[in-house]
């Protein structure tokens, strides 16, 4: 799989570090335990489009939000994560 980095161009996935689903919002410290459980543990885990965090570790070291089809690895979008959830 090759990931297009908005800063460095298309690179092999081995240059990147994977974190998992993007868009999970960290609850307030005093939020109920169920909110923390959902944030830390529960995932949609879709077979299809997934927005996810990758870091271009062996490149520009920027965090990216990549939108990828988990069935085909086709990448629809790859943008810098700054300013995005």
């Amino acid at each position, binding site marked *: 799989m090759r990931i297009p980095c908005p800063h460095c161009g298309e690179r092999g996935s081995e240059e990147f570090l*994977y974190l998992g689903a993007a868009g999970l919002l960290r609850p307030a410290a005093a939020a109920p335990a169920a909110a923390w459980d959902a944030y830390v543990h*529960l*995932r*949609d*885990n879709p077979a299809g489009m*997934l927005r996810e965090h990758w870091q271009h570790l062996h490149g520009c070291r920027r965090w990216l939000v990549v939108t990828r089809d*988990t069935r*085909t*690895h086709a990448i629809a979008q790859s943008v810098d994560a700054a300013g995005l959830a």
Partner: protein
Amino acid sequence: MIVGGGGHGLATAYYLAREHGINRVAVLEKGWIGSGNAGRNTTIIRSNYLLPGNEQFYEHSLRLWKGLEQDLNYNTMVSQRGVLNLLHSDAQRDAFARRGNAMRLHGADAELLDADAVRARHPYFDFTSARFPIKGGLLQRRGGTARHDAVVWGYARGADRRGVDIVQNCEVTGIRIADGTVQGVETTRGYIAAAKVGLACAGNSSRVAAMAGLRLPIESHVLQAFVSEGVKPLIDGVVTFGAGYFYISQSDKGGLVFGGDIDGYNSYAQRGSMPTVDDVMEGGMALLPMLGRLRLLRQWGGIMDMSMDGSPIIDRTPVAGLYLNAGWCYGGFKATPASGWCFAYTMARDEPHPSNAAFRLDRFASGAVLDEKGVGATPNLH
């Protein structure tokens, strides 16, 4: 009703009939039985876990493996020829000694070997590697391998003979629920009512559980495996490299069967990526330089239900009558007998057996997680 005709689903049906006298059971499988991970794994069986909660379950499973052929009257080719985890540093020796002691406290066998004892079993390893010297290993002699397809066929035949219906090419597309209680399942072959539904869908667990409105503490990841051309008997037992992700055994046909780590990002594609192929081959060459002389015959992938703590779930769910068997990560083949046995018990009695009591779905919310590696809620690192 069991959803999923892999090893776990079929074993569940078998033990429902044999242990609990319940034979009005159907197993629904979207493809053919054994087309998922049951038919794709590297067949290693072992009970070399550290944590209470895990260790007694896998030891229960190893005891069922021991008598499985007599029980099923089917040659599942259970071969207890040893599983050896190699160690390469003093810190690793301490960790393995601790794990070996924990195993023995649970009645399992474990032996700490020094480098000479490892050399006597496997003279062809690269013992003097400056980067990864082999200092010894933790051996479980009762571990080994079994024939994966035969396990599927043996449980399927045993269940079928006790009156279980196995329905292939029947995909579950919805779960009907009324007043918080399961009513039955929608399938590609019509609606089927059922008072109790057990999900055993491995890599597809999140998708099927979502039909009942559940979000699981699971991500799906691909794991690859490899087999070489056949050679004369060379490697006895199963060996895991301790300085990288690589493990190997030899099949009865002579092929060297090996693998490494998951690819590391969510995937529902039953095929892997090249960087992981490289990584596995590098691990193999570091341990066993002669591997480079062999040709690779086949390579494939399967979709793992990686849980947030690396341990499985066998439990009831918040929906009455709906039960969950999931989170097997890369190690659910060895679990097949005990998983079926415990899931049948849990479904029949509506309560867990002591062997699966720690595999609760609510352990993530309560904090009672079973994290063997201590890496936290990071499925791709377990």
